[in-house]
């Protein structure tokens, strides 16, 4: 009887110890989905009148302004 009890305790202890080594998967099981309000696109509204190309043109102009080489050196003809 004592022997069976000792064996069972040993098996339980081994299972517990082995359980400590298990790595739990930490990757999300579900896809994260935005739960808030829908945002407008930057070109929506009266400034650009839903015209994406016009908005992109305005930004490209601003982008060129960041390149001082274009300002300091005349464009090659």
């Amino acid at each position, binding site marked *: 009887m004592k022997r069976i009890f000792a064996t069972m305790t040993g098996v339980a202890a081994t299972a517990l110890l082995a359980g400590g080594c298990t790595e739990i998967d930490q990757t999300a099981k579900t896809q994260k989905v935005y739960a*808030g309000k829908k945002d407008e696109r*930057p070109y929506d509204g009266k400034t650009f009148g839903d015209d994406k190309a016009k908005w992109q043109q305005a930004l490209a102009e601003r982008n060129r302004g*960041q390149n001082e080489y274009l300002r300091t050196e005349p464009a090659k003809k």
Partner: protein
Amino acid sequence: MARMKFICDAERCIECNGCVTACKNEHEVPWGVNRRRLVTVNDGKPGERSISVACMHCSDAPCMAVCPVDCFYKTEEGIVLHDKDLCIGCGYCFYACPFGAPQFPQAGAFGLRGKMDKCTYCAGGPEANNTAEEYKKYGRNRLAEGKLPACAEMCSTKALLAGDHDSITSIYKTRVSRRGKGEEVWGWAMAYGQGTEKITGDAKGGTKA
């Protein structure tokens, strides 16, 4: 149009804090909240460098992954924004962010935190464009006015570049090929994926190393 990004050129930044001030002023950011700030390494020693740091609008944003209320979203232009009406101010995003971008206003006594505030790339938030409500919660929506972020446009040495990926990397490549050094772009590998820490080559046919 490619996605919007920031580049901070450590060779050019003179630690003037113009970007920090421009951001504060443009959005009426309250005391204790710094959407953009300057970090200086080797201060006062040879090799001193300063970098302007804010939300980098990461490709795979960790703040979005950890938010328990899913208040983050990404726009078509790759800008990471959040809905303040949903935010519970838990601070998980602050712990996840490698750039320390999320900021929390002191909303009351005993260190009580308010709703998270961070750089919006001057693109406002989920309210109608350029309305008083949007301004109050998120600041000015310059993007909807066809303008780039105030910090980059205010930068006197043009160390801070903002805009569409192709345009700003082209500008940076020209600089690198002219000066022959400084191709390392701080924070790029962390924010936009491995293997993009250096932008080398000439403006026409440069390669991303």
